[in-house]
C-alpha cells in the first residue's frame, strides 16, 4: 500500500503541473415527448419519443466515449460499421383503416433493418453478428436472423439519414423480420436501460410493463441515423430515437367510463421531467374535440398549438413538464361531457389487408388487398418476404384492379438459397392503381393480389415451426403526390412524401 501511495504521490506531483480540463466534450441533447391522441373508434393512441442527438461524427472511435448516448448501443453501432439502424418489437396489428397512420409504422414481431457504411466488407457476416449482438442487448431472439431470411430490397427502402451520394446502393442494406417474436417485459426493461434517465425520472417512469403490454398494439422502436447538425449541413450528428407506440382500447379499459387520464393509462402519474432532458413535453391531440365527442382537459393546457399539414388542421394541447411546478404526482385527465360518440371513420390514403386462403397442409394462397383512398392513381412498391417452407408459384400471381388484371412494372425476384432453403422476396412496382375518391360511397373495390403456394415438408432436425404458417409482414410503400386543396390527409410541401406502412396477416 505504501508503495502505491508513493507511486500515486509521484504521479500527482508530476501531473499537477499539467492543465486542468474543465470543458465538456461533444455536446449531446436529450428530449422526451409524449403524444396522446384519442381516435374516432374509441381507442387512444399514445406515442412516446425519446430523442438523443449527439454532435459527433459517425466514426468507430466516437462511440468509445459516451455521455447521454447509451454506451452499449454505441459500441455495437461502432463495431459493426452501421450507418443507420432501425429495430422494432411489436405486438398486435395496427388497423390502418380505423386508426389512420401511426408516427412510426412497424410490422408485428421483430423487424430489423440496417444500412451499413460503404467501407464495410463481408456484409452478410457483419449482419449476422449485428443481429446476434442486438439480440443480447434487447433480450429478443434476433439471433435467428441470418442470410436465409434477410433481404436487400432495391426499391422499398431509402436511407432516412444523411447519405454521401443520392444513389443509395441497396447492397449495403439488410432487412429481416421475425413475425413470431413476442414483445414483453423482458424486452422493455433493457430498452428502458438505454435511456439516459433509465426508468427513474421523466416520461419513462410511465412505461410500466403491466400497463404497456395490456394494449391492443404495443411497439418498441429504436431508430438511429446521422442527421445534419445545422442548416448548412456542414457537420454530422448522431440521432437516436427510442419510440413506444401504444393503442389502448378505452371501451375495455374504461369499464364503461369514457374519461381517461395518464394515471389510468399508465398506472402512475408523472413526478417530474428528466433532469437531463432539454425538452420534456406532453401533447394531446384535441382535433376531435370539435368534431367528435367533446372532452375537457384538466388541468387546462398552458398552450394550444395548431398545426396545418396539407390543408388539414390539427390542434394540440401542449404541457411543458419542465416548466410545471409539480408537487407530488402530475396527472392529465380528460372528462367527457356527452355520451360516447363514434366518429366518422375516414380511412387513410392507402391501407392494406392480407389473408391466407385454402385449407389443409398441402397448398394455399395469400391474398393482399390494397385500398386506395386518394382521388388519384398511386404507384405502389410492394415488398414481401416468404419463408422457405412455402414455395411460391409466381405464375399464379394475379393482380386485379377494378376488375381488370394489371401487370407489375418491374418484378424483381430475389431468391436466397441455402440448400433446400429459399425464400422469395419481390419488390414490384405496380403502376396505375386507378381509384376514384368518393367520400359517400362506403365500399370501394380494392385491388387484389393473389399468390398461390405449397407447403413444404420439414425435416426432423428443423426447428418445429411447421404447425402454423407465419408469414412476414408486407410493405406497400407509395410516393404520395403533392397535396392539393382538397381535403386529403397527407403532408408535404415537397413533390412527394415517401410513406410506407407495414401489414401482416
Amino acid at each position, binding site marked *: 500500500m505504501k508503495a502505491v501511495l508513493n507511486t500515486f504521490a509521484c504521479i500527482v506531483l508530476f501531473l499537477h503541473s499539467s492543465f486542468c480540463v474543465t470543458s465538456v466534450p461533444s455536446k449531446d441533447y436529450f428530449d422526451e415527448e409524449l403524444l396522446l391522441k384519442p381516435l374516432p373508434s374509441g381507442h387512444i393512441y399514445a406515442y412516446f419519443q425519446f430523442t438523443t442527438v449527439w454532435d459527433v461524427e459517425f466514426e468507430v472511435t466516437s462511440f468509445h466515449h459516451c455521455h447521454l448516448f447509451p454506451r452499449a448501443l454505441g459500441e455495437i453501432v461502432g463495431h459493426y460499421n452501421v450507418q443507420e439502424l432501425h429495430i422494432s418489437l411489436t405486438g398486435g396489428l395496427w388497423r390502418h383503416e380505423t386508426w389512420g397512420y401511426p408516427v412510426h409504422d412497424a410490422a408485428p414481431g421483430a423487424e430489423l433493418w440496417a444500412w451499413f457504411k460503404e467501407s464495410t466488407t463481408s456484409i452478410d457476416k457483419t449482419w449476422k453478428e449485428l443481429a446476434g449482438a442486438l439480440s443480447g442487448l434487447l433480450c429478443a431472439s434476433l439471433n435467428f436472423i441470418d442470410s436465409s431470411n434477410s433481404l436487400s430490397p432495391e426499391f422499398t427502402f431509402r436511407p432516412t439519414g444523411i447519405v454521401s451520394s443520392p444513389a443509395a446502393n441497396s447492397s449495403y442494406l439488410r432487412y429481416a423480420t421475425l413475425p413470431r417474436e413476442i414483445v414483453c417485459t423482458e424486452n422493455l426493461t433493457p430498452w428502458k436501460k438505454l435511456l439516459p434517465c433509465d426508468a427513474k425520472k421523466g416520461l419513462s417512469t410511465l412505461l410500466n410493463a403491466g400497463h404497456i403490454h395490456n394494449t391492443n398494439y404495443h411497439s418498441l422502436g429504436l431508430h438511429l441515423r446521422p442527421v445534419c447538425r445545422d442548416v448548412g449541413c456542414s457537420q454530422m450528428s448522431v440521432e437516436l430515437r427510442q419510440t413506444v407506440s401504444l393503442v389502448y382500447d378505452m371501451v375495455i379499459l374504461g369499464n364503461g367510463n369514457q374519461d381517461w387520464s395518464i394515471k389510468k393509462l399508465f398506472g402512475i402519474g408523472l413526478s417530474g421531467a428528466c433532469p437531463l432532458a432539454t425538452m420534456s413535453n406532453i401533447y394531446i391531440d384535441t382535433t376531435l374535440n370539435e368534431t367528435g365527442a367533446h372532452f375537457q382537459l384538466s388541468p387546462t393546457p398552458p398552450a394550444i398549438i395548431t398545426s396545418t399539414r396539407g390543408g388539414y388542421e390539427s390542434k394540440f394541447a401542449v404541457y411543458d413538464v419542465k416548466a410545471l411546478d409539480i408537487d407530488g404526482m402530475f396527472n392529465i385527465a380528460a372528462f367527457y361531457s356527452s355520451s360516447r360518440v363514434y366518429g366518422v371513420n375516414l380511412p387513410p390514403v392507402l391501407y392494406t389487408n392480407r389473408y391466407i386462403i385454402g385449407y*389443409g397442409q*398441402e397448398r394455399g394462397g395469400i391474398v393482399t388487398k390494397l385500398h386506395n383512398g386518394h382521388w388519384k392513381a398511386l404507384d405502389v412498391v410492394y415488398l414481401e418476404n416468404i419463408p422457405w417452407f412455402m414455395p411460391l408459384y409466381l405464375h399464379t400471381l394475379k393482380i386485379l384492379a377494378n376488375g381488370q388484371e394489371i401487370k407489375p412494372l418491374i418484378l424483381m*425476384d430475389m431468391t436466397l*438459397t441455402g440448400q*433446400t432453403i429459399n425464400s422469395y422476396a419481390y419488390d414490384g412496382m405496380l403502376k396505375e392503381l386507378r381509384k376514384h375518391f368518393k367520400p359517400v360511397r362506403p365500399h370501394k373495390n380494392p385491388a387484389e393480389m393473389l399468390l398461390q403456394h405449397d407447403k*413444404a*415438408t420439414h*425435416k426432423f432436425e428443423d426447428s418445429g415451426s411447421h404447425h402454423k404458417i407465419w408469414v412476414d409482414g408486407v410493405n406497400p410503400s407509395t410516393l404520395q403526390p403533392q397535396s392539393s386543396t382538397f381535403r386529403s390527409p397527407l403532408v408535404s410541401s415537397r413533390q412527394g412524401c415517401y410513406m410506407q406502412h407495414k401489414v401482416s396477416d
Partner: protein
Amino acid sequence: MENLIYLEYAVAGIIRYWLLNSDYKQTIGDRVEISTPLNSWRKVTEGAYLYNEGINPYVGDNFHETPLGLTVFDKMISHIPQWIGIIFIVCDLVTAHVLYHTAQIFMSELVEKDKYAKDTEALLLKQSDLVLPPVYVASAYLFNPYIIFSCVGQTTTVFANLCLAFTFLLMIKGHRLACCSVLALATLQSLYPATLLVPASIYLAQAERTSSLEGRQSLRASSFILTAVTFIAALLLLLYISSELAGGWEFLHATYGFILNVPDLRPNVGLFWYFFTEMFENFRLLFIYAFQINAALLYLVPLTLRLHGEPMLLAASLTALMAVFKSYPSLGDVGFYLALLPMWKHLFNYMQQGFVVGCFFLITSVMGPIVWHLWIYSRSANANFYFGVTLAFATAQIFLVTDILFAYIKREFSLYHGLHREVNGKTTKLVLE
C-alpha cells in the same frame, strides 16, 4: 384386329378428353401420387414464367426440367396454350401404338426357339397365341387408370413414357443410332433409363448377329462398345445443347442434382421421402448412396447375367425396378411397365401370387388418397400411415416382378427338362435354392 385397335384409341382419347375438360382435371393433376416435383405441369408453368421474366428458373427449388424441355414447353405454353391437352392425349395414343408394334414384333420373336424336350408341345406358343397379346398391351396402356390420370394431370411422365416406348421399339427393331438417341433423350430427362442401355445393347448385338452372314453363335463385343459409344455421344450432345440453351451448366444441379440428392421431401409413392425426413443429417450421404445404388445398380448385373438371353424381359424388369425404387416415382411410371406385362401372357399360368398382388394394388390405390386426406386435411393421421400404404404398394410391385420372373424360370425349366419330372422314378417338386 386393326379396327379394334383404332376403336380402342378412339375410346381412350374420348375418355381422356372428357376428363381433361371436366372439373376433375385440377384435382387429378394436383394429386401427389400423380405429379411429383419432377413431372408436375405446375412447376413447368412456373419455370416458363420465370424464364420469360428474365429470372433464371434453375436458381431456387421450383423447376427441374431440362433446358430442352424448358424451351419446348415454353413455346407450347406461349403459342398454343389451348392445344396442350390435345398434345398430351396424342402423345399417349402414340405411346400406345408404339407399344402395340413392339409387342407384335416381340411376339413374332418368341416363336422361333431352340429344341425343347419331347413332351412340351403343350407349352409352346402357337401362331394363334401371337395375335392377342399386342392388343392386350395397347389396351393395358390405354385403359390403365394410372396412365389416364397421368395424362389428364398433364405430367411430363407422358413424354418420358413416349421416349421409353420408342426406345423399346427401336431396340427390338435393331436401329442403333435411333435407339441410342431416344434412350439418351429419356436419360436426359430422368437419369435412371440409362440402365436400359444394357438390354438395348444386347438386342442390338443380337440384331447384328442375325443380320450378319456368317451366322456366328456368340455376340460380338464390338457391337456392345459401339452401342455404348453411340449412347454416350448422343447424351453428351444433348447435354451440350442443353447447356447452350440454359447459358451455363447450373441446370445440372437443378435436374440431376435434384434427382440424386433428393432435397425435396414432399411425399410421393416412392420410398425415399420418409427415410430422408427421419434420418440424422450426418448420415445423409450414406443413405443417398445406399438408396441410389439400390435403385440403379444393384440389380443390373445379376439380372443381366441371368436374363441375357431374354433382353426384353430384362428391360421390362429394369423398368419395373426403376419405377419402384427411383427417387421421385409416380403412377405414370408404374402404369408403363404394367402395360408391358401382357407380352408374357403365356407366363400367367405359372404365376402364383396374382390374386394377392391384385388385391394389394386395389387396396393401396384406394387407401392412399384416403389416408392422405386424413393426414393432410383432417390432421388426424400422420406420415406413418401414408408411408405404410406406399410401402405396401411397393411390396406389391416387387411381388409382381418376382412372380413374373419365377414364372419365366419355371417355364424354362419345364421346357428344357420336360413336363414330367421324375428322378429315379419318384415324383419331384421344383425347389428354389
